[in-house]
């Protein structure tokens, strides 16, 4: 029997990005014991990559803003497939969560009258994103981390959870390994919060790091929770495309917020060509008005570059596919052009977008104050994920909660930039609060040794498979999956493509069971990659299955064979993925409940 250490908590939080840290802080302040497990070192989670800002209707820059407008913007951005209650809670509570961060030491950029400054972003009607240059995520995670380490939370760094255990219907704990020595750790817990982020590593071109293998999605699914709307994967319109080694690295939407424009290979500004009906009244119809908007003219409407991400990404793909791309298969994002408008443009760009300036200077030899950047879509964010109760963030498995990117509901078919950071805080706090409450109200869990033993045996299998003796290379399986998802379940999808991806996934799953990890258990990246495959394949299958189910093109989900936004005679629905009795993955549709009257009225009034 494999050895393992045991660490028992009232509440265990898995993942230490914004949502996990916020949940841990909240649970701890409720007086329960809290463990926090993270795959990397503390403070390195993907939240650190968030650049542009955190959306909250503080109304510091434009007093016309308020929670109702933020709510309406979020719903419109999500094509009204959002969980309206979550969108309401998010819009109402985000300002308080941002102010609270300031009390923990975060220093946002300031307005002239000394308040938190807010900037424009795609899909937000008013300047709404509190920010720190283009490194808002770093500021946020550091504020949470530096506050969190003094809250009595027990942190297990570089520890990966591979499975959840159950006590009857209830979740009873998490089992994982620490990277340094490869030792196993068992975390019995009355309540567990999943805050593991996204699924970006299922794709070849992604802004996500090695960590984002859909762990929370797969852990929840195998524990009996439901996943919803997995087909909605956000392809951020602007990732780097050249040189090849930096492909996918994010270029913040803040570049467009500061006046950056998109041009095709012919030098033409193509975003005016196609403005969706839903946004026509809110969008500038000439370049001059668009520029005035970015410079704070309250009467001007937003330039089409600041339309929602799903739309901008599709327009870029269209330009490239129709032969009007840039030399390396993207389009041009130009901020240097503002020289024509501002006397001190170069300095202005360096001050507003310092990390973009350095990123291009150091990785691509491009001075963005002089030359345009080459950009193209990159896999960025999972709108879909673990289905939760809107108020408590609990899944249908008692004691299992989920928050942040791995939870679902707030963003519908497409997420607005800046709404992820506010999502982390609002629902991270709620998950922590309700997980603590659940832990207080329920008895201790009973640990089933048999479950633990079979997980441990499974986890050791790649080390026992012999390399060369049929046991494949885990990295190769991951690459092959990434190629398939990129090609067949990417921005443009079809029944034929998705179906062949699903059958490829079956083959990859067989290969994944036989992969071999050479070497021993000490900090063995090959072993870790082999274990990650399980979650990655579960998430990829869920995405493909949901993508096959939704026979329409809406938000981030585009079907070449079903270009219409709506299916005939069909009401708005969520796709729901759950595990069948024989272990097979099932997909179904569930109609979205009718919006509360007062919220419906807000949508009608604001438009």
């Amino acid at each position: 029997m494999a050895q393992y250490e045991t660490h028992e908590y009232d509440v265990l939080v898995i993942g230490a990005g914004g949502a996990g840290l916020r949940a841990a802080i909240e649970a701890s302040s409720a007086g329960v014991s809290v463990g926090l497990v993270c795959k990397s070192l503390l403070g390195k989670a993907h939240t650190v990559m968030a650049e542009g800002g955190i959306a909250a209707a503080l109304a510091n820059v434009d007093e016309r803003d308020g929670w109702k407008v933020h709510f309406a913007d979020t719903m419109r951005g999500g094509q009204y497939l959002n969980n309206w209650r979550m969108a309401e809670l998010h819009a109402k509570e985000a300002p308080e969560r941002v102010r609270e961060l300031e009390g923990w030491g975060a220093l946002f950029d300031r307005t002239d009258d000394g308040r938190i400054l807010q900037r424009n972003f795609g899909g937000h009607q008013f300047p709404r994103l509190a920010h720190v240059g283009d490194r808002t995520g770093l500021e946020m995670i550091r504020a949470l981390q530096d506050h969190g380490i003094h809250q009595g939370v027990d942190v297990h760094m570089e520890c990966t959870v591979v499975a959840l255990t159950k006590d009857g219907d209830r979740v009873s704990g998490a089992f994982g390994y620490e990277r340094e020595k490869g030792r196993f750790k068992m975390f019995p817990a009355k309540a567990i919060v999943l805050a593991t982020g996204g699924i970006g590593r299922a794709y070849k071109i992604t802004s996500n790091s090695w960590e984002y293998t859909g762990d929370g999605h797969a852990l929840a699914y195998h524990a009996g929770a439901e996943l919803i709307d997995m087909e909605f994967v956000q392809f951020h319109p602007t990732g780097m495309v050249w040189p090849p080694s930096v492909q996918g690295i994010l270029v913040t939407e803040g570049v467009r917020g500061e006046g950056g424009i998109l041009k095709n290979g012919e030098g033409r500004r193509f975003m005016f060509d196609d403005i969706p009906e839903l946004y026509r009244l809110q969008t500038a119809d000439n370049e001059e008005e668009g520029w005035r908007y970015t410079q704070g003219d309250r009467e001007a409407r937003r330039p089409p570059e600041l339309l929602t991400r799903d739309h901008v990404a599709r327009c870029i793909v269209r330009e490239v596919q129709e032969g009007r791309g840039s030399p390396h298969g993207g389009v041009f994002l130009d901020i240097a052009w503002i020289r024509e408008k501002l006397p001190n443009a170069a300095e202005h760009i360096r001050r507003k977008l310092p990390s973009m300036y350095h990123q291009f200077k150091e990785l691509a030899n491009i001075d963005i104050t002089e030359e345009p950047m080459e950009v193209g879509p990159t896999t960025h964010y999972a709108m879909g994920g673990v289905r939760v109760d809107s108020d408590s963030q609990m899944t249908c498995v008692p004691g299992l909660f989920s928050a942040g990117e791995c939870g679902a509901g707030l963003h519908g078919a497409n997420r607005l930039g800046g709404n992820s950071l506010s999502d982390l805080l609002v629902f991270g706090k709620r998950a922590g609060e309700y997980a603590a409450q659940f832990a207080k109200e329920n008895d201790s869990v009973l640990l089933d040794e048999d479950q633990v033993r079979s997980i441990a045996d499974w986890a050791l299998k790649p080390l026992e498979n012999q390399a060369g003796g049929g046991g494949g290379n885990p990295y190769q399986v991951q690459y092959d999956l990434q190629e398939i998802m990129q090609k067949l379940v990417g921005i443009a999808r079809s029944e034929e493509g998705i179906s062949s991806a699903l059958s490829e996934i079956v083959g990859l799953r067989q290969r994944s069971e036989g992969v071999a990890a050479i070497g021993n258990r000490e900090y063995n990246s090959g072993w870790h990659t082999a274990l990650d495959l399980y979650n990655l394949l579960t998430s990829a299958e869920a995405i493909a299955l949901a993508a096959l189910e939704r026979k329409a093109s809406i938000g981030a989900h585009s079907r070449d064979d079903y270009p219409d936004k709506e299916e005939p005679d069909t009401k708005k629905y969520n796709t729901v993925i759950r595990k069948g009795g024989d272990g097979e993955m099932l997909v179904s549709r569930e109609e979205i409940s009718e919006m509360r009257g007062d919220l419906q009225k807000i949508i009608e009034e604001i438009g």
Partner: protein
Amino acid sequence: MATAKFKVWRGDTDSSGFVDYETDVSEGMVVLDAVHQIQAEQANDLAVRWNCKAGKCGSCSAEVNGHPKLMCMTRLDDLPLDKPVTIEPMRAFPLVKDLVTDVSWNYQVKKKIKKFSPRPPDFEDGTWEMQQEDIDRVQEFRKCIECFLCQDVCHVLRDHHLHDNFVGPRHYVYTASLEMHPLDTEDRLGDLKETDGIGYCNITKCCTKVCPEHITITDNAIIPLKERVVDQFYDPLKKLFRIFKPKE
């Protein structure tokens, strides 16, 4: 396709040394790409830390050709490829395996520094009035990505191993970000002098040179902190005042 040679540090606390590898290089590749390629194709169990691959998380710190660098921001075409590129773990920290070191000491040290403690809010909504120019200086310190390259290169830690008496440049930057925070009310000067060992720093500026975020660690954080400590504890006039101040 062109290839390049690498000497990568392999092994754990029992035994370790350079192992030679050769791999393809393409345009724009960074050192971390080469390490990943070697890992995927030739050495699956190679241990390396990384996350964002964009210079924002500070995970992939190592010594490339003897220089402390983020591997993700070090381009191969900036290195001489006519001889092997050496890649070693940070030397100021205990080796775990291959390119991974035990940096947990940094997390323990940070926890001992007195936390942020703000003055009461200025407004009813719980917020404060701060001008941009009041926070510019602190925002520079808050750019720190905790890569610990400054700790790696600091001779007080690297050569003299004074980990018990000296917190290192990273934590002076952290302390400065708190001490100079317009809202903070805590006093950390006594700790800086007594337990944090700021006196050991003899301002050789090695930390500033290696900072990938270009924080002017020595000039903007350490020297002002040293001055504050001197003002507080060594100012002759203040000392006289203290001696002759009537006891309360």
